[in-house]
């Protein structure tokens, strides 16, 4: 048992390193990914809140002033980048439709762990650099941020990322039957964009939608971590977030396990 865990751990660490090595092979792409893209996204979302406050001509919205929303926009852009996996989901789907998956399923490892560890490795190597942007911006513009809360917020977001990966894995099960399903990924990500609270804080939505949205696991991607850092929510809501993600992980992993077996049984071993 002890040995098999050690083997599992070393293997997955190697997958994470694979993602790091692969990304660092293309240096310019890496720096655009970790610096230019987050700066642009943050800029757009901050401008949006500037426009909202100027257009509405108010001092506060829902009890929070402009600086709180600017801080929310700044951190939401950062966390949303961690909490999405469109790139790896596209890659997983492509592996199935092109038959490249052949080289993976004949090795003693699972497709799920192979991509999860790579995803975590990739997010780790991009997050440690991208984190510099909101930290510097929050400090320079003196935006409301509780720095001591950042580590727990990042942990919840990475935990939520495992759920995101499980959903990607479920989408891949469909890919065995329908081959081309990248439109699923785009539609799903648009929905998650709203449900995670990247576009606007979820507590701005009217009841009963607000209560429902806050109970869904998707809040764990952006709203809860950012709300925690910017003092919109407390530790209790964070714990609820961890529980919600855990329940979803158990249910969706059980479903994914059954679907994966059924899907592989129909797989025709595409190509070659």
């Amino acid at each position: 048992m002890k040995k098999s865990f050690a083997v599992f751990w070393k293997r997955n660490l190697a997958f994470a390193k694979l993602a790091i090595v692969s990304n660092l092979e293309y240096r310019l792409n890496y720096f655009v990914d970790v610096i230019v893209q987050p700066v642009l996204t943050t800029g757009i979302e901050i401008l949006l809140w500037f426009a909202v406050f100027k257009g509405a001509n108010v001092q506060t919205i829902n009890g929070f002033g402009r600086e709180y929303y600017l801080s929310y926009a700044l951190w939401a852009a950062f966390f949303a980048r961690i909490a999405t996996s469109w790139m790896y989901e596209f890659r997983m789907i492509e592996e199935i439709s092109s038959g490249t998956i052949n080289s993976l399923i004949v090795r003693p490892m699972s497709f799920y762990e192979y991509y999860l560890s790579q995803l975590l490795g990739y997010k780790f190597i991009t997050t440690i650099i991208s984190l510099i942007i909101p930290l510097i911006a929050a400090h320079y513009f003196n935006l409301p941020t509780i720095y001591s809360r950042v580590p727990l917020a990042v942990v919840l977001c990475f935990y939520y990322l495992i759920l995101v990966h499980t959903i990607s894995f479920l989408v891949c099960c469909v890919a065995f039957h329908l081959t081309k399903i990248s439109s699923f990924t785009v539609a799903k990500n648009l929905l998650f964009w709203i449900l995670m609270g990247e576009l606007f804080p979820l507590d701005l939505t009217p009841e009963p939608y607000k209560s429902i949205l806050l109970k869904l696991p998707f809040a764990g991607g952006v709203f809860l971590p950012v709300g925690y850092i910017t003092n919109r929510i407390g530790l209790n809501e964070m714990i609820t977030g961890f529980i919600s993600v855990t329940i979803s992980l158990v249910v969706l992993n059980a479903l994914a396990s059954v679907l994966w077996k059924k899907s592989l049984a129909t797989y025709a071993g595409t190509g070659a």
Partner: protein
Amino acid sequence: MDAYANIITMSIVIETHDLSREYKTYQKPEGVMNSLRGIFKREYNSKIALDKTTLTIESGKIIGLVGANGAGKTTLLKILSGLVTPTSGDARVLGFKPWERNYEFLRQISILLGQKNQLWWDISPVDSYALLARIYDLDVTAARKKVNDLAEMLQCAHVLNTQLRRLSLGERMKMEIIGALLHDPKILFLDEPTIGLDIVAQENIRNFLANYVKEKEPTVILTSHYMDDIATLADRLLLISKGNIVYQGTVDEFVLNSNSELAQDEKVDFEEVIRRFLETESRIR
């Protein structure tokens, strides 16, 4: 079970019984209107790629699996390696049902698909091998030594640190072979390992495989459209036509018995004998 029967049982590494696989494919008639109709109603054709195949393969043998395009050889290879689940029938490879993909089974086999990359495209082969060592739980130092030894034998040590996508087809195939052999598989599935290579590269790989098999004695299932590969390497021949095994036996027996007239004609080589045999079988079926 007596001792003799036990020895016989022990030496069988692959056993199949009435193994079949059927594929369903969407039929799309020409034109935009038919594409629109296809949104609501689609017609599918069934094709039997492998039809009730029963065979046994002993350990340490090199089996040449030969057939025309679409004859079912790759389907058989994919079922035996665990890539594809059969529609019906049963198979045991090293005592395992391949499509259950038991890790213990997967650690003992290797499949090399000549038309598909198995290594990682964006990193160097040495990084790929380090990853494979982790996947197969190998001793990292021993794996590194093995890579160097195999690279020396294949004369490709100078490209081990070059990103895979920047290598030539021949160099890439050598890298793939090293990757496939790194964990000393007991069964090696080789699907057209020399496809697309020039004559010199084909011969190098053929010689390397012959030496490797002599030394390590794995069971090898080899498919190739180059009959030189089969004639040089194979101990036994499996001829497949339209999903059916139409010949099982040694290469020499086949040449002597299946068509003795052709075999005695010095102008007709091994490739020609097989081609004519398969053409005849194809017409019968």
